[in-house]
């Protein structure tokens, strides 16, 4: 047993982090910067990471990129195309419940129906609750285009959304920590008060727990029996989603009044977390209890 990331996996994570830091929206105002988005799109396309699965990468690698892109609020498609690629359709994006949640610039959607893969054309993509990923409705008629192992595909979908959620939570947490060190009240940084410091300490514990459970679930996608992988993915998604929700709300609270304004990025992370939570949502009722 050795669950450390390999050096190749660390390099991939670092490269994804750097790309997100360099070209992601550094502030809310940059979400509307079309030139930046075009540069980001071109760079992400050049990495080939949207086709990680068909290139033979494991769930761990896909999750690492998804996490760093969530942390950096990367606002061009990744989650959608990488899951569509897992279903064998590299140039499409994923559809769930008749909507493609990550469809900016993409015209074709695929989804899983039992073990069958269906495809259809998409309507126009627009930003909605999530300001970083644009959703598009299915507009054309569906055709069955293939077959896959549904449990493994479902496990990957849960793992990738959980990774996106964890990454966004880390982004919201970093934002809050930076703010707590510079914002002063009563003559000292607010992070020096236990009431603030303890909330942030709790957020870090939630992040570390999320990293641990997600790593196992991401590995399990390809290495465990499909049923075990699916259960691990459900556990990871429930924990990451619940933790991230708390972490984002904490970030808004630590920012005080500013945290409730449009200009503070805390809500952008929260929106992304909640939208990803709602993609293939997992309820506690679906968790198997007392198996081992």
């Amino acid at each position: 047993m050795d669950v450390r990331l390999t050096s190749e996996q660390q390099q991939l994570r670092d490269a994804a982090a750097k790309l997100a830091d360099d070209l992601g929206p550094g502030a809310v105002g940059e979400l509307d910067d079309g030139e930046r988005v075009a540069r980001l799109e071109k760079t992400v396309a050049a990495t080939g990471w949207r086709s990680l699965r068909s290139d033979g990468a494991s769930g761990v690698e896909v999750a690492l990129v998804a996490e760093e892109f969530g942390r950096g609020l990367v606002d061009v498609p990744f989650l959608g195309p990488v899951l569509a690629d897992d279903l064998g359709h590299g140039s499409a994006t994923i559809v769930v419940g008749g909507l493609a949640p990550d469809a900016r610039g993409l015209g074709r959607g695929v989804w899983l129906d039992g073990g069958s893969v269906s495809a259809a054309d998409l309507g126009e993509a627009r930003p909605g609750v999530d300001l970083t990923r644009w959703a598009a409705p299915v507009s054309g008629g569906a055709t069955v285009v293939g077959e896959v192992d549904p449990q493994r595909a479902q496990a990957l979908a849960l793992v990738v959304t959980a990774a996106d959620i964890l990454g966004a939570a880390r982004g919201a947490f970093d934002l809050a920590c930076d703010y707590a060190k510079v914002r002063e009240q009563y003559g000292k940084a607010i992070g020096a008060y236990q009431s603030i410091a303890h909330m942030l300490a709790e957020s870090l514990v939630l992040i570390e727990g999320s990293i641990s459970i997600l790593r196992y679930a991401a590995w399990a996608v390809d290495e465990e029996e499909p049923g075990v992988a699916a259960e691990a993915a459900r556990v990871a998604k429930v924990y990451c989603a619940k933790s991230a929700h708390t972490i984002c709300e904490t970030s808004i609270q630590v920012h005080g009044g500013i945290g409730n304004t449009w200009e503070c990025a805390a809500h952008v992370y929260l929106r992304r977390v909640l939208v990803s939570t709602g993609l293939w949502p997992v309820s506690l009722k679906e968790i198997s209890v007392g198996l081992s």
Partner: protein
Amino acid sequence: MDFRDSAAELAFRQRLRAWLTEQAPNFPKSTEEYWARQGEWHQSLHAAGFFGATWPKEFGGLELPPVYDVIVDEELARAGAPPRPSLGYLVTGLGRHAGKDLQQRFLPGMIDGTQRWCQGFSEPGAGSDLASLTTTATLDGDEYVINGHKIWTSYSDVADWCLLLARTDKDVPRHKGISAFLVNMHQAGIEQRPLKMINGVSNEFGQVLFDGARVPASQMVGNPGDGWALAMTVVGHEREPSTLGYAARYEKTVNQLARKSAPSDELAWATVQVQVLRQHVRRRLSEQLDGISHGPEGSIDKLLMTWVEQSVGHAVLAQTGTADLDLFNTYLYSRSQSVMGGTSQIQKNIIAGRILRMAV
């Protein structure tokens, strides 16, 4: 990256599983029997070659990678056996801070379980603020004379030896006047007062009154004033769930609840939490392969473990309420996890101050 057992790990697991099957008829049947036979369990686990994974062979350890402790914990829980004795913090404390002579004299008996140990740190007036301790050790010839009052001393009533912190110098800053001693518990001048906890158990924690007890100066760990550094090592390791094997114990409770009662959100949430802790321990132990020695990160792990244990406690209440006395006591015991080994508030101070660099 591999979450599976290697061939060697699998062989160890299978050997342990077979041994536990043989031992199963002898497992304690009640809480009283568990406490009474704790020392015997420690000795048999060691004699069979399953205890002390990471410790040096010269002191009776196995010199194996840390993940072997996870295997032991998982298999003990699976078999319904008593847990692995919690000793890592004492062994690590002596391993890092004691001279070779004291290590050779004391570690083998500590590890093989023939000598029982307790830890005399906390006092009625020195809980979270440990450095305010007032127990004194005064040099008299080639011995120190101990006077003071210790509390929350685990297993003090059955201990042969005590790792004791006492003040040897009142005239220096308080952290610098503390020294550590290895004190024989079988002597005049030591009075035991058991503490009965809210779950009704009085075997675990005690109070110890030192009134003129004596310890040879040669049984001081390190030099005068080195006690604080040892204390920080010990409490750092005391916090690490990876050295405690609690994930497997919690899993056992969750499985017990699942057999007894219908599913609920509380039980499902406890299941999720236990899985998180289980994978978290695996990640932390794997990181130790890099030689990373956790400092303040131990507080993250302790806090996570506390939340997990208390969610299991709440699952007990949700599933069986007050109907099952043993399970109810499991709930009551869970309340102490956010206090012992450093309160959750102290852990958050450590995380915020030393990891997040807030000026708390």
